[in-house]
């Protein structure tokens, strides 16, 4: 049974087995590889996307469960927060290998959408679900603060 998903503003019919996580629908069925696989069990945050404005781990979210929602992936970020965050990331070259960074940015965009001036503790809470094995944490924290100042 095809499921209709609205991704980055566009409706797409998906014919995947029931229970297939959104992550693999995005990557394997729709060819949207910006959303990454890191653990498959909601531990690393690499697969973070927004569903109705909330960050979720797409690796544990069955695609049929998000039918009728607004799904935004890294490829579809278009808010002002997002642009400022991407610019802040570029300004100090936050990413090293970059593999975790789609997820980091999705989490950071959500943080700043809800909290214009996050404290270190707020950043810890919002970002500790996103592992960066390159350990770019110093710069992620810095870039979030830089972006907050601009917003």
């Amino acid at each position: 049974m095809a499921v209709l998903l609205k991704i980055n503003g566009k409706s797409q019919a998906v014919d995947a087995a029931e229970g297939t996580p959104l992550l693999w629908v995005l990557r394997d069925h729709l060819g949207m590889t910006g959303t990454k696989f890191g653990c498959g069990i909601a531990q690393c945050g690499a697969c973070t996307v927004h569903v109705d404005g909330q960050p979720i781990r797409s690796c544990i979210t069955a695609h049929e469960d998000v039918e009728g929602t607004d799904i935004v992936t890294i490829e579809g970020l278009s808010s002002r927060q997002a642009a400022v965050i991407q610019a802040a990331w570029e300004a100090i070259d936050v990413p090293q290998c970059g593999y975790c960074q789609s997820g980091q940015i999705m989490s950071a965009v959500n943080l700043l959408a809800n909290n214009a001036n996050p404290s270190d503790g707020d950043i810890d809470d919002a970002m500790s679900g996103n592992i960066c094995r390159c350990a770019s944490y110093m710069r992620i924290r810095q870039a979030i603060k830089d972006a907050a100042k601009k917003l």
Partner: protein
Amino acid sequence: MFLDLANKNLTQAAKPKHIPILFKPTRRHVLGGLGGLTIGLSLAACQSKTKSESPKALAEFPDNSGLEEGPGLFISIAEDGRIQIRSPRSEMGQHALTSVAQMIADELDVEWDMVELAQAIGHPKYGDQNTDGSTTVRNNMIHFRRAGASMRHMLEQAAANEWGVDKSECSSELGVIRHGSGKKISYGEIAKAAAALDIPSEEDVVIKDRKDWRYIGQSMPSVTVPKIVRGEGIFGIDVRLPNMLNAVIARPPTVWGKVKSFNPDDALAIAGVVKVLELPAPQGDAIGFQQVGGIAIVAKDTWAAIQGREALQVEWDAGPNETYNSDEYAAALTEAVNKPGDVKLRRGDVSSQLAQASKMVSADYYAAHLSQSPMEPPAATAKWDGDKVECWACTQAPQAARRTVAQVCGVPEENVTINVTWLGGGFGRKSKADFVVEAALIAREMGQAVKVTWTREDDLKHGYFHAVSAQHMEAALDENGQTTAWLHRSAFPSINSTFAAGVDQGSEFELSLGATDAPVAAPNMQVEIGKAEAHLRIGWLRSVANVYHHFAVGSFADELAHAAGRDSKDYLIELIGSDRNWDPTTDGAIYPNYGRSLEEYPIDTARLKAVIEKAAEMAGWGRDLPQGRGMGISAHRSFLSYVATCVEVDVDDEGRITIPNVWVALDAGTVVNPRHTKAQMEGGTLFGISNALYGEITAKDGVVQQTNFPDWRVMRMREAPRAMEVHIMESDAPPGGVGEPGTPPAAPAIANAIFAATGKRFRRMPILGQSDHLNLTGEG
């Protein structure tokens, strides 16, 4: 580098590396093509037809396809003046593409915006492509610079010919050649004429004076980051080909384990699963980079393959390693280092000094197996066309992948093309080609393109693990507290065990990473190696044996300071002693020096002490700290660079640690990109702290017990230091490595800081493991 060294017999000293000649000045290495210029050098080759990815409106780069033999294509200029650089080095977060571009663009003298980067395929004609051992800049800077300078030379010569003037009257400036008369011509316009010239000989090429550098030494922005922040980078796991199938593999739980029996029916019943097939078992008596065997589940999408594997019924023969229990092994290693081993460095007479010392100090250290666990797990795609195979992989070592695929599949190397994608981290894991071999084997069986994806569980259970180790240290102190004798005994399963049968002790090469190179001034010093067989695939991880050796050396130095009642930093400086260039071979050690000569890259104690003083100064070493806080320091030379790390920890009443501050001083000689070098120090330091606090892979009955990130713990944002400052020492010295040297001093620095804060010495890595509280009562 490790690959090469690991493949050699390391009982012989590594000879200084032969540096390939840059150019053979023959016409064949220059191609005019569509009016542009392409230059080839011995680092460089490209057999595949490559088209610029740029929009059609832009000029084409010269067609590379005519070049089958000899040095190949490396830098191309299009008619509109754009430059394409094909990097032979893999990009895995060290911003290698950006550094390579800086070195070439500087000498070529072009606008930064005109440079485009592409990735070279794996081919021996590119020289050393093994992106390992922190070598991209330190071993290749001169090659990249000469390549750019040679091209500039040819463009100037072509302009001079055109104008009928002497070349000495022409000069370049950012993509334009000018003559004193006011004439000028752009690189794009003169490129075709330049392509008709011979490549100049090395002596004729003038490289820039350091003071004239425009990009080298500057924090040029990364060329990959703009894509990364938009999710556009293509990593190995992102490769998609038409009609591609997706596979995961059920691998034998133990090394050299085998499939006893399996029933594919339940797996095939999963929607989307198209085939279940058994992979060949590894051959010979060394596992090397071969596939480990097992059952592949091939499906339409990755999820179906994962579900198919869950459903698969398979029974395993555990094989020879089923007795491996890391707890018992830890006890055996500690026992091994508590009796005399094979002496690998000897100066003076350690035993008699220890016997008669006014004070004797000894300590045992232990460090668990670690996993590299790059954020992108291994992934590779392969597609056969007759007896030729093309692979796409996140590999650090594309030539090793090519060689191994050819060997295992029984085809000539020429039939194997390895396309290198971006790497979502490497840390040594992706130097090993097993995952590329798997993709090639399955794709051949399927007759269509197949991508093999490793799940995180696969990555943790079937890795090439960093060696577990035990270290025994003893020292004699005289009545003034000075160290007069130093004994270091080490035991760990060797990387060589992965490449040869019967290896039962660590190599001189591994000892040279942190043990035989410890610049201890004591008149008596001895380094010994104990027995240790391997029961997992042992591989290298960021900074390799330096991790455990320097954990012991750096912690023990601090223990001696306390035993002598001295300040830790001052004592460390004294332990290192006078300013000198130290050569461990004079004490009988085999010392490869990271593949370079000691004349060019000495072990310079003055530089080591200078970074210690700098880090201490940045930290305000010696200042009063609030209750519960402590500072620790350590310093080490590795990969030809010197790093001192000072860590401040805060430990609360319940033993919870936070890290308010870290200071790092780095002397890496000449630095190409300070911003990215600092990023490597940040990442390398945090990687080291993560290992020290949390990193532990264990095995029971030969099976690795960790499954995913909850039980394989790595540092997260809330555990990262609150502040960190990195200082790069000004230096004209030849470039050292930067990807790895940040890691070794981090572990002892944090252990020393915890001691300063709590009075408790932790001699076992990981210090915390799964706990959030230091064990302040039991044995460290």
